[in-house]
């Protein structure tokens, strides 16, 4: 039942405020058709709705490439403290030293843990961080009068946001093939590099769940050709504190704070795509950043970043997210950073080893996994007509959120599994046991799997109908008519 269907006309009363200063022609005729419900009705409705969700707090959620780790509750309590939650974005610096000191320290900690020289907290999501990074690469080449560099190289295993971002920045995209062992095809890369190359976007460890072993060579090739190297930080959790993108030769990186630094995913945002840069890109950083002058803190201005790409948001990105990330980093401290990558890697490799033993086929079986790994179910699809999607749906019945399905696009019938460091061995074992059970069901009772889920609030939904007979909002006529 929709909230609108609980509505009773006449429940809410308007006050008799006189709006005579506003001409009638500018005013609204009829009130908006929002629901009229009691506070309890609203609370009950949304509390009930919430129980129809899987979440980290309720279920193991091994969604590959999304780093669904525990989101410490204290980070939320602190972000909602009135001094932070009620602080106006344009408050004078006098009323801002506490907040600005947190933001400054967050910039510094992110620089340290990634090996970059400057950090901007402005981007509001990973995709916006990517945008800022590629816009900076373009601004850098433009400032050097290097206008012929019109192409961004992207491995075919990359996230869809990478090529979409390059297009948004006015670049053409050239895809580079990946070898069967997960590394970039260096020969194809060498053939693609030229005077038109503006840069390369790379995720390392890659979306295939392995570390790019040729990274130093790749960095050298790109730099010698005059291009810049962009690091997609989606998988930073895998190397946090152990290997730094700056040391690998990257010129600009984005970090998804909602992944690596445990801020909530919130049902699809808000995120934060903070970006780090090497020395030569500092003048191009977006507005705004925080600068320390002796003992006080201030907002950066245009003279701090001479060639700034400009604003990305109305104010300063998503500070409520930044505060949570700051709290998380301070709780972990320097020793905790390294533990993140160690235990997320341990968990992934343990799961991969156990699943291989249980008969599942790993996409890249002979290498160590990073913090995630890929199982391909192409054999099951061919022999049993049970697909990765079927496994995913059946997992829901068994109390596990499905891994990422059908990504990366290179691996047929794949599940990209990322357990994260905060899951216990017990939960990993439970997931593996569920996969083994589904495999047995697929062999003996195929339909049970291909028609799953059976225990969710709804069964498989008709997506074709959703797209063809668009029903995107409720209107009054739907209940009366």
């Amino acid at each position, binding site marked *: 039942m929709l909230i609108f269907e609980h509505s009773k006309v006449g429940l809410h009363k308007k006050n008799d*405020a006189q709006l005579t200063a506003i001409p009638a022609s500018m005013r609204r005729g009829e009130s908006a058709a*929002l629901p*009229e419900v009691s*506070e309890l009705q609203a609370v009950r409705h*949304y509390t009930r*709705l*919430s129980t*129809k*969700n899987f*979440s980290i707090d309720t279920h193991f959620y091994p969604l590959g490439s999304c780093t669904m780790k525990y*989101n*410490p509750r*204290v980070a939320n*309590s602190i972000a*909602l*403290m009135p*001094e*932070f939650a*009620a*602080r*106006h*974005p*344009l408050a*004078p610096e006098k009323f801002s030293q*506490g907040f600005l000191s947190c933001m400054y320290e967050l910039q510094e900690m992110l620089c340290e843990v990634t*090996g970059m020289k400057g950090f901007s907290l402005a981007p509001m*999501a990973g995709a*916006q961080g990517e945008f800022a990074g590629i816009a900076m690469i373009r601004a850098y080449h433009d400032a050097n009068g290097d206008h012929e560099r019109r192409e961004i190289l992207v491995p075919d295993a990359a*996230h*869809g946001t990478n090529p*979409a971002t*390059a297009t948004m*920045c006015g670049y053409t*995209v050239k895809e580079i093939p990946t070898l069967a062992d997960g590394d970039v095809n260096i020969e194809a890369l060498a053939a693609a590099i030229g005077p038109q190359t503006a840069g390369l976007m790379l995720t390392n460890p890659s979306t295939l769940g392995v570390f790019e*072993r040729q*990274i130093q060579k790749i960095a050298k090739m790109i730099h010698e050709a005059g291009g810049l190297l962009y690091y997609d930080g989606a998988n930073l959790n895998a190397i946090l*504190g152990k*290997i730094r993108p700056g040391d690998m030769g990257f010129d600009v990186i984005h970090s998804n704070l909602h992944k690596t630094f445990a801020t909530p*995913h*919130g*049902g699809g*945002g*808000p995120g934060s795509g903070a970006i780090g840069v090497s020395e030569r890109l500092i003048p191009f950083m977006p507005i705004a950043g925080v600068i320390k002058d002796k003992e006080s803190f201030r907002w950066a201005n245009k003279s701090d970043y001479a060639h700034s790409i400009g*604003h990305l948001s*109305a104010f300063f990105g998503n500070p*409520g*997210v930044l505060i949570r990330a700051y*709290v998380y980093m301070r709780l972990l401290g320097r020793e*905790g950073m390294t533990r993140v990558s*160690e235990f997320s890697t341990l968990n992934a490799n343990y799961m991969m080893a156990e699943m291989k033993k249980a008969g599942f086929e790993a996409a890249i079986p002979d290498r160590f996994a990073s913090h995630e790994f890929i199982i391909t179910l192409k054999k099951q699809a061919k022999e049993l007509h049970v697909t990765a999607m079927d496994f995913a749906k059946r997992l829901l019945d068994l109390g596990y959120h*499905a891994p990422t399905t059908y990504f990366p696009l290179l691996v047929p019938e794949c599940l990209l599994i990322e357990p994260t460091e*905060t899951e216990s061995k017990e939960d990993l074992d439970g997931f593996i046991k569920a996969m083994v059970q589904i495999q047995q069901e697929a062999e003996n009772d195929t339909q049970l799997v291909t028609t799953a889920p059976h225990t969710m*609030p709804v*069964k*498989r939904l008709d997506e074709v*109908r959703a*797209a063809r007979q668009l*029903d995107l*909002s*409720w209107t009054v006529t739907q209940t009366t008519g």
Partner: protein
Amino acid sequence: MPFIPHTENEINTMLESIGVKQIDDLFGEVPKALRAGELSNIPVGLSEMQMTQLMTERGAQDGRPLCFIGAGAYDHYVPAAVWQITTRGEFYTAYTPYQAEASQGTLQLIYEFQSMMTTLTGMDVSNASVYDGASSLAEAVLMSVRANRKSKSKRILVPRNVNPTYRSATHTLVKGQNIELVDIDYDKETGGISLDSLKAFEGEDFAAVVIQQPNFFGSLEDVDAITDWAHANNALVIGVVNPLAMSILKPAGLWGGAGADIACGDGQPLGAPLSSGGPYYGIMCCKKALVRQMPGRIVGRTVDEEGKEGFVLTLQAREQHIRRSKATSNICTNQGLVVTASTIHMSILGAAGLENAASQSHLNTASLVEKMCAIDGVEKMFDSVSFHETVIKLNKPAKAVVDAMTEANIIAGFDLSEAYPELGDAILVCATEQRTTKEIDQYVSALTKALGEV
């Protein structure tokens, strides 16, 4: 080890299963030269109690000044239930609802959100939100260039009384695609856009005209006339709206003869705390004919195999994870959690509650302005109708006055001198429904004092 649940025994069992001696062996493929040293610039970890103490101190440094500033972020009351429900783990720690069957809570909520935004703005469809007001304008601009079939132009007319940061961010976000934002000047008397200032563009080719309602100066625009003019010139109309104001003002979908084509803006006034500038969310609504040009997530209602109602992400063929370099935008997530809060906020307040907050803010600002203008040397800058913000002209340096007012623990308003130097010493003030008469009087006496001292 905070948040890591492994015992020594378990670690050993796991390593044995993998066939390595120690965790570090798992990083054996990484070239030795790339191994990081100690992260000496990161402090050692704190306990939760120490962290709470530290942040209580940091918060106390900033205090709780009285807020008389808006300029795109507004200090409205949010019922306690809103964030208590929003931060339930099932909403707070879920992700994008890719597995629809296990995400019906979030999906239905987004569908309800879309329904609320369409009725509030008077538009046909809404998406699940974009990042914030500035990025919603940028996405609207990109969308209008894709969608306008009558024009091949990449020029957009943008009045100078549209939020200056929105304009600047939009420029950053669209310039890579060679889209040109053309400034239109505002009328010096009213601060609004007059048909006279548009005349110079008559007969020229451009994709869209942007109108902010209320404009950055807080004044109401003659949206009907501008909309009709734009349509007569084959341009689409992008309305940048304050959604709370929409509860009492003519909604964008009803502007002029045909309505705005796209409505965008910042959802912050509907349940998001100020929170230093975010997370808020960007509103994205449009006419039905443009829905396939819309960026971001959209939820649709459908049925399951047994005919039972359910909700899914739909029209995904527009998006980056399918279309890659040909996607309508690189946008991936929406601002789910804030949308959750906003949906609950609108449900609890209803139309009447929103209208009450909007009209009380309007009246409080009017009262503040009236009392301010009784002071010698203080006057309204523009002859116009305000919603809940007004530009005030001072006879002393604006920056110095704003600084002096901090002594009284008051944020006096937004100093316009940097963005609009032609206005001289002027500030943009705002008194939301939360400001009491006592606080307004406090403001007026602090201002009187400041003007005397500066």
